[in-house]
């Protein structure tokens, strides 16, 4: 069953992030996994072990690329070396779509290596959408943008985060990687209703969903990807699936990474909701 035009008409199931502590397990045990998400930048290199491992993974599994430093929202133009290396990797992996974040992180050629929040202005939406189009035209695969967790809001913002997301994806005509954990984290940090966000997203553009755990501090929540998914995030995921249907879903676990089986089992909990979506569609 095809999904949508923003994930290249694929029908992916539940994936997990490909992380170094699991390489040995994956290559020796060959567990059944629907797909792996790789961090593009880790493989935008000229040679060596990472690419060797990736090639072995590609022989057995479907791989989707997820970037962390294209910075669609940075005011500066895309870095040409970055684009060239990204395209080389896209040709290697045959990723059906390519995701990166709706954020900024570099200015005047200096990189923060962080996902910095956008000011929700029309100017920013125009610049961001232009950059998404530029990247998509260069790499020649569908590009989808992911909402980030944030800890700050700007005075200059002219709209809500979800209105900004919609503005960007309409202008760029691109898909969305809907991170429901990020919505939850931001909703707590900025005191909005996460369901308003999920209900406002154009369902037909959601190409992929991220789920993850986070860390709670006294005055804010930090998106740390080092815990299991909490129930309120699963409920938000349930609502998202009700709206967008059976959608490629990925669990992110990037710090204090437990065993492969533990991570995979956590991801497979999404089946409860995806099965429901399939059933509803059949009825």
């Amino acid at each position: 069953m095809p999904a949508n035009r923003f994930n290249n008409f694929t029908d992916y199931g539940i994936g997990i992030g490909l992380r170094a502590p699991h390489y040995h397990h994956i290559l020796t045990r060959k567990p059944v996994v629907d797909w792996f998400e790789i961090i593009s930048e880790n493989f935008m290199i000229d040679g060596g072990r990472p690419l060797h491992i990736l090639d072995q993974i590609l022989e057995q599994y479907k791989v989707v690329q997820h970037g962390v430093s294209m910075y669609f929202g940075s005011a500066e133009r895309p870095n040409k070396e970055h684009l060239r290396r990204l395209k080389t990797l896209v040709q290697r992996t045959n990723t059906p779509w390519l995701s990166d974040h709706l954020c900024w992180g570099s200015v005047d050629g200096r990189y923060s290596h962080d996902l910095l929040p956008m000011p929700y202005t029309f100017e920013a939406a125009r610049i961001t959408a232009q950059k998404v189009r530029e990247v998509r035209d260069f790499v020649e695969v569908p590009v989808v943008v992911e909402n980030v967790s944030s800890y700050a809001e700007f005075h200059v913002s002219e709209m809500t985060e979800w209105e900004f997301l919609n503005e960007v994806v309409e202008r760029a005509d691109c898909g969305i990687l809907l991170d429901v954990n990020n919505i939850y984290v931001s909703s707590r940090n900025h005191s909005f209703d996460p369901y308003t966000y999920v209900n406002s997203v154009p369902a037909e553009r959601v190409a992929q969903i991220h789920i993850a755990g986070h860390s709670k501090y006294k005055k804010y929540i930090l998106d740390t990807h080092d815990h299991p998914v909490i129930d309120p995030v699963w409920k938000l995921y349930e609502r998202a699936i009700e709206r967008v249907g059976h959608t490629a879903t990925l669990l992110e676990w990037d710090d204090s990474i437990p065993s492969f089986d533990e991570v995979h089992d956590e991801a497979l909990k999404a089946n409860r909701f995806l099965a429901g979506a399939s059933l509803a569609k059949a009825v």
Partner: protein
Amino acid sequence: MKLLSLQRRMARAVMTPLTPSERMRSVAPDGRSMRAVASEIIKPNDRLTSFERLEIYNRQYWFRILSGFAEDFPGLRAVLGGNRFDRMAKAYLTDCPSQSFTLRNLGSRLEAWLQKNPSWTAGRRDLALDMARLEWADIEAFDGGAEPTLKPEHLASANTAKLRLRLQPYVQLLGLRYPVDDLLLEVRKGDDDAEVASNAFSERHHQKRVSAVAKLKPSPIFLAVHRMDDSVYFRRLQRDEFAILTALRDGKPLKSAVEHALRKSSGDPEELAANVQHWFQTWAVLGWFCRIEDKKSTGTDRSKALQRPSRRA
């Protein structure tokens, strides 16, 4: 406020070094109050002030790049000691913020920066510079490009006077003053062992070993940092061996590279010739030479080459 202006202001604040207690500074680099800077761009909420919200990003930035940098230079940390290394890292990353989309390149300007800022390595300057060079070479060798290797049959028709052999991009050649290769291997082993011991024990052990190496009289060593089966190795080279490889890397034709490298050698010519033959065999076995693709530039005999099918697909 325009997007670019806002991003410049926020980036300046985020990249401002933290206080010794790892909090955001109260004064911005331009002398203004950081509270005022934060209030101008960021809204407060019912739990956090503008300053506190900006501080989350300021702290995340420094925690991320400092941990990435420390991961890449455990040997230099051992040479300088933990406290001095941490202060040096903050100074370096303040002067040389990342200009790359990948954290891998954080240390690319370290050696040059240390040369310009000798106070950070005072007392152990050469040892620290050697270690910084070795650790950067290690990064380059780990994921540097690899081209198809040269096979003996590729040389069958070569004109050795004009033949230029290219080294694999991942092969790094270093002339050093201290045996930092041994030291780095010990530091890494110590760090692995420290997973079951305490960090303090590991640091003390490193310092003892570093002190012993620092007391050695500087003596040149030549090293190839290379890769085999996806693992990085340090291979000690003889002076003449290093000179030939360096000449080849500099683009000299094979014949003149050997002549140039050995012009100052004073050994027995027959023994030297045997050594050179042995070295080339070893380098070929290790796959250090790239396959020759461009017949014109490699000096392949053109009359013979025209009779052969192209190796290009």
